[in-house]
């Protein structure tokens, strides 16, 4: 298989070279340099190649020559090769595979930085074939000792995800693991991975929420941004709206009304609400988030400041949002691009929370050096901030802007004045007068823009301003900007009763120039003609006919359509239907004045600071900011289990303290029960642990030795009585096989048997405990039964059982001894002595007894199995024996053959078992897959191949019986 692949690689490589040599000989010198022995030449070549890549020139034909140097000793050459490899691996997948082994080696390097960089490059190579290798590397790195390697693993997750989205489930597991990481180095990167892979799995955050809040200030800047944005979304799903009781809607209704009114309304409605709702209490976790993010407003990084600002805007109670204004105003002194983004967000904020920025009004004054786009945005903010008290200052400021040389900006200013005028009734007349004066401006653009704005303003109170309409009618002679002309014509048509003498004259002039006008102007001429025809047909009948005839043959179909439509509607003919009766109503209906709105209104349904908000359109991968929940989800999900220390007393103390820390409403009865039961079991475990701990410490002291023996003796006794110890529940081992150590006849009346008790040996975890049972079949008592002169293979050790002083006739005595078999099936030879005789005996363990069970989940099992492939995997097929039906029997047989524990798994066709060897702790993984017709397959994955082979044999035998 491997050789086949290699051959294929060689073949494609040579083909590539053959084809390309003819095409490009120009890179020959580079190839030569790369092939040379000198690092300096290689470096020079690589530098030239990288420069080519940087300029966007194609250097892919050098791939084979470059990849050869991937294991180069020189660090700079190596780094540049990496750069090249990552750039072109996608195009030359087969050749790229050649480099993989170098990185795999790097992944095992003792130096964490090398491990990290190997993982980084490996995961950047976008070749689908290596997905399993990447997955494995990521999983391994996720549990690396070094936080830096774990950080790199977090970075690699989105890379793998984009390469193969099918890996999502496995990657989520890794993310879950890394989210639990407690180092600041990892936090930012893993949240980034979370956002890219599974932003919808908000449940993964619960347990880590408080930790993330507390780590936040120490995370590097870029990570802070990502975490804050994610936590904003999280908080929106988990906490209640702090402004609910204040009722924002009331404020919005009277948005431009006076503050007093607003206040009154608020009070009334709030009072009404108080009756309905119970008082709002902020979740302490909500408060924690707000408190821990606030200092970051002082960050030098604009992105961090913006992230905190949007968090406060979306999550904080109204009264506290104000703190962000100062920080945002500070960003206004940064680069113009930063200003651009910040101003967009400020513009949105000012619509909802105007008061917040009012004290900083002057910071939004426009400088002559600002780029136009900044000027326009500042205008927007100033307009939003305008109210009765500051409008005069703002207007004075606007007046100066009109003198600017930047015409786009002037146009925007005129629009802004128009908006102020519509929004604030008191200044409407002043604004209108100012704008009318602009009509005599020398710049046509200024005039045109003013006309458009005046038109909108006049619509509010046309009756008062017929002189302005007259003035504008005169402008038609000079002004050329189509939009302005159209606006004037519309005005005259709409209010022709206010200017009855001028209107027909304007129509006459327009009819004359009709063919030369722009389309929008033509449409308005038609409108004007129709309206005049309806009100003053005597004077305008012929003119209207003329205009309609011209329009009939216009090039633009809109205009032709409109002409046909109007003609049918207003000129009474025999055929004309019922509609013409209503022509007057149709054309001369009272039109509502336009509402001049900010383009930033309602933009706050996008998360502020996001790209989507800036574009006012959903960008790919944008996560909606959810609405506040109606009622708060269970806050206890964020409670983190406290790890209880070993001593019982302190456990209780701890428990008390955690309980007192938690708010009272948190502890619901169910979780409490769980907690207690878990403490109990951990207590009993810890007791044992502490015993064995103390054992280990005092091991060397002779005096204690006896005591230890006593303990092991007790344990043995306990076992014999089959006392339900906490651990006895876990392995379902069935009856133990007993082996003969000394036959009654050879032992001259003393019979000795042994069995493997499958209990951990108390003295030494690396030993297999062997339970030995002495039976005295003689008439005399046997004295001082003990072990003597063990003859052992190198490395093997024996923990002798305590000497049995007296074994009366007919009595049975059981002891436990420990043997370290060094994970081999070699026999332990020793002498068994009584006070009179010596017997040579041998204990040979079946391979299944050299291991002890460990508990694993299916996923862990699969993960570990993935790492024990190839030589470490032994698979055999078999036919199940007659009595071997159903997985229950299989489990029982496997477990009686080997000391393993079952791995819970979903499939009924598969049984998995896990254990580790007693001495070295190497994993032993057994999978039994049953197929139809009693066919089955046994797979053993074990680092120790010998054990694996023997175990397969034993299991085969057990199952085929």
């Amino acid at each position, binding site marked *: 298989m491997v050789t086949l692949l290699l051959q294929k690689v060689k073949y494609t490589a040579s083909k590539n070279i053959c084809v390309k040599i003819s095409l490009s000989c120009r890179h020959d010198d580079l190839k030569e340099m790369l092939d040379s022995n000198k*690092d*300096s030449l290689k*470096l020079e070549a690589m530098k030239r190649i*990288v*420069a080519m*890549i*940087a*300029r966007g020139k194609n250097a892919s034909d050098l791939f084979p020559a470059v990849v050869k140097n991937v294991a180069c000793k020189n*660090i*700079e050459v190596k*780094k*540049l090769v990496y*750069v090249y490899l990552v750039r072109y691996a*996608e195009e030359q997948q087969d050749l790229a595979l050649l480099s993989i082994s170098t990185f795999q080696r790097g992944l095992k390097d003792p130096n*964490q*930085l090398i491990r990290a960089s190997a993982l980084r490059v490996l995961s950047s190579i*976008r070749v689908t074939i290596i997905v399993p290798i990447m997955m494995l590397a990521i999983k391994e790195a996720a549990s690396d000792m070094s936080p830096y390697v774990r950080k*790199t693993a977090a*970075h690699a997750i*989105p*890379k793998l995800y*984009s390469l193969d989205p099918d890996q999502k489930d496995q990657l989520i597991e890794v993310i879950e693991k890394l989210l639990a990481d407690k180092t600041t180095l990892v936090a930012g990167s893993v949240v*980034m991975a979370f956002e890219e892979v599974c932003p919808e799995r908000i449940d993964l955050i619960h347990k880590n929420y408080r930790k993330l809040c507390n780590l936040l*200030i*120490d995370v*590097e*800047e*870029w990570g802070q*941004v990502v975490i804050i944005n994610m936590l904003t979304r999280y908080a929106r799903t988990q906490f209640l709206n702090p402004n609910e009781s204040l009722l924002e809607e009331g404020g919005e209704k009277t948005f431009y009304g006076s503050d007093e009114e607003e206040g009154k309304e608020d009070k009334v409605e709030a009072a009404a609400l108080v009756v309905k709702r119970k008082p709002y209490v902020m979740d302490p976790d909500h408060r924690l988030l707000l408190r821990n993010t606030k200092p970051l407003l002082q960050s*030098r*990084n604009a992105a961090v400041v*913006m992230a905190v600002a949007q968090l406060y805007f979306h999550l904080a109670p109204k009264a506290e949002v104000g703190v962000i204004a100062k*920080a945002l105003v*500070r960003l206004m*002194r940064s*680069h*113009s*691009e*930063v200003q651009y*983004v910040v101003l967009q967000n400020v513009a949105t904020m000012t619509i909802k929370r105007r008061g917040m920025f009012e004290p900083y009004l*002057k*910071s939004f*004054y426009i*400088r*002559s*050096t600002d780029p*136009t*786009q900044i000027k326009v945005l500042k205008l927007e903010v100033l307009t939003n901030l305008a109210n009765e008290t500051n409008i005069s200052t703002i207007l004075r400021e606007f*007046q100066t802007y009109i*003198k600017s*040389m930047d015409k786009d900006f002037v146009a925007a200013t005129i629009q802004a004045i128009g908006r102020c005028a519509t929004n604030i009734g008191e200044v409407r007349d002043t604004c209108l007068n100012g704008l009318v*004066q602009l009509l005599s401006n020398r710049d046509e653009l200024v005039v045109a823009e003013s006309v458009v704005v005046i038109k909108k303003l006049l619509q509010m109170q046309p009756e008062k301003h017929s002189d302005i309409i007259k003035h504008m009618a005169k402008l038609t002679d000079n002004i050329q900007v189509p939009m302005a002309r159209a606006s004037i014509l519309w005005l005259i048509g709409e209010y022709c009763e206010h200017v009855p003498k001028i209107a027909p004259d304007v129509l006459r002039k327009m009819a004359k120039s009709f063919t030369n006008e722009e389309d929008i102007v033509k449409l308005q001429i038609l409108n004007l003609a129709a309206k005049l025809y309806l009100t003053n047909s005597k004077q305008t009948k012929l003119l209207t006919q003329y205009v309609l005839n011209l329009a009939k043959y216009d090039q633009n179909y809109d205009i032709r359509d409109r002409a046909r439509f109007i003609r049918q509607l207003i000129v009474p003919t025999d055929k004309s239907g019922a509609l013409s009766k209503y022509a007057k109503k149709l054309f001369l209906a009272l039109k509502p004045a336009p509402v001049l709105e900010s383009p930033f209104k309602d933009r706050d349904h996008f998360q502020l*600071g996001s*790209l989507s908000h800036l*574009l006012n*359109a959903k*960008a*790919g*991968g*944008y996560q909606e900011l959810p609405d506040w929940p109606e009622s708060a989800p269970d806050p206890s999900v964020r409670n983190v289990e406290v790890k209880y220390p070993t001593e019982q007393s302190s456990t209780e103390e701890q428990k008390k303290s955690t309980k007192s820390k938690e708010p009272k409403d948190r502890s619901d009865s169910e979780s409490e029960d769980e907690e207690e039961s878990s403490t109990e079991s951990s207590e009993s475990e810890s007791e044992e642990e502490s015993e064995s701990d103390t054992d280990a410490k005092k091991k060397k002291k002779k005096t204690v030795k006896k005591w230890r023996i006593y303990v092991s003796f007790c344990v043995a006794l306990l076992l014999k009585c089959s006392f339900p110890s906490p651990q006895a529940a876990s392995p379902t081992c069935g009856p133990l096989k007993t082996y003969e150590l000394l036959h009654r006849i050879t032992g001259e009346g003393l019979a000795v048997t042994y069995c493997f008790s499958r209990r951990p040996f108390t003295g030494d975890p690396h030993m297999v405990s062997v339970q030995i049972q002495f039976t005295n079949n003689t008439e005399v008592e046997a004295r001082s039964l003990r072990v003597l002169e063990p003859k052992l293979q190198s490395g093997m050790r024996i923990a002798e059982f305590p000497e049995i002083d007296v074994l009366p006739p007919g009595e049975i005595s059981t002891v436990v001894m420990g043997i370290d078999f060094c994970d081999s099936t070699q026999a332990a030879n020793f002498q068994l002595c009584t006070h009179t005789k010596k017997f040579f005996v041998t204990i040979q363990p079946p391979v299944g007894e050299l291991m002890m069970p460990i508990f694993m989940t299916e996923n862990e099992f699969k993960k570990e199995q993935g790492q024990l492939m190839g030589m470490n995997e032994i698979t055999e097929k078999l036919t199940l024996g007659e009595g071997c039906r159903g997985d229950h029997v299989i489990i029982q047989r496997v477990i009686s053959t080997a000391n393993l524990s079952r791995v819970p798994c979903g499939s009924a066709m598969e049984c998995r078992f896990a254990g580790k060897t007693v001495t070295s702790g190497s994993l032993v993984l057994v999978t039994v897959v049953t197929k139809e017709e009693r066919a089955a397959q046994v797979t053993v994955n074990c680092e120790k191949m010998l054990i694996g082979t023997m175990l397969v044999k034993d299991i085969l035998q057990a199952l085929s019986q």
Partner: protein
Amino acid sequence: MIHSLFLVSTAGHIFLEKHWKSVISRSVCDYLFEAQGKASAPENVPPVIATPHHYLISVYRDRIFFVAVIQTEVPPLFVIEFLHRVAETFQDYFGECSEASIKDNVVIVYELLEEMLDNGFPLATEANILKEMIKPPTILRSVVNTITGSSNVGGTLPTGQLSNIPWRRTGVKYTNNEAYFDVVEEIDAILDKSGTVVFAEIQGVIDACVKLSGMPDLTLSFVNPRLLDDVSFHPCVRFKRWEAERVLSFIPPDGNFRLMSYHVNAQNLVAIPVYVKQNVSFFETGSSGRLDITVGPKQTMGKTIEDVVITVHMPKVVLNANLTTNQGTSTYDPVTKVLVWDIGKLNQQKVPNLKGSLSLQSGAPRPDENPTLNIDLRIQQLAISGLKVNRLNMFGEKYKPFKGVKYVTKAGNAGPQREQRSTFFCWNLFE
């Protein structure tokens, strides 16, 4: 996150591209060129451009567009801030951030970009860490490198990335231990034609140059910290101590860095150090105009005002200017329509004056706008807000460092960070 980066000169030449994920064709930059064509100046190109498949986020610095290509949602400021960080790193490495210097050091640039981003997410952006991994080019080193074939890439592994204080590299050693702090303040003001202040504020920064061995822990305190209204810090500053005691406590990065930026409370009256009298008028007939500008010192607290430069943006119809001055030099660029008057030092005795005639395009209408004046100036040894550093203490190391504080006041900022000037707006109201 960031998918690709293109560096584009103002002439529209893409001279560097780097991809962190799969390759994106450089034709994506056409959308930028389109926007550039519409904009009157490079500064007016919108920083965020949406294209059918990508989003372009660009910053314009030192006559180069840094264009990042984005495919999915990302906070725009995140990218903008990062791009500026890239530009600052180049500046730091090559002394200037220009097309030529980037082209000359293209390999180092590539190595830097490789370290700064991983899969489009920022990895190492701290100058201290980067310098540990990739040494900045110096003339000496490049000579040595060509002879010996040794490299720019540090042989030792960068341990700074692993530490809790990523901004400081480990094992710093100096024979002379010194720490210098520059308190630089800027006045940002808008005045109207009569010289009345419309808007004025003082912003300051403390730039530090710290060359201390080992892991020093510094504390900097002020005589009058209450002056500071709004502050932002380098990540090394412990925010809690500032909140509680109003002192700056920090383990400094090695070398140059900006310790803090601050804003002085606007309620304090800002003293404008100079006055300007200007009179620019255009005659109704004869297509000509007159210009008369006088500058003099006002409140300077006994310090001299230096480097005074006045810039006037003239209306488009002004063809040329024939001006005489009693101090400094004046130049008028007829293409950009910018008049620059470089005065230099302001003396108490002599008041600089610039006057003369302007020739306008014949036949064109008289411009009705009044030009705006921008003034740059500099006062040494004075922080105009009155902020004073009290003392600098060092803990954690035994040696005695040499300490220094310098105060400078500027109008606007000539440095790379800001574009603002103290602007003297002139207005004409509606009659």
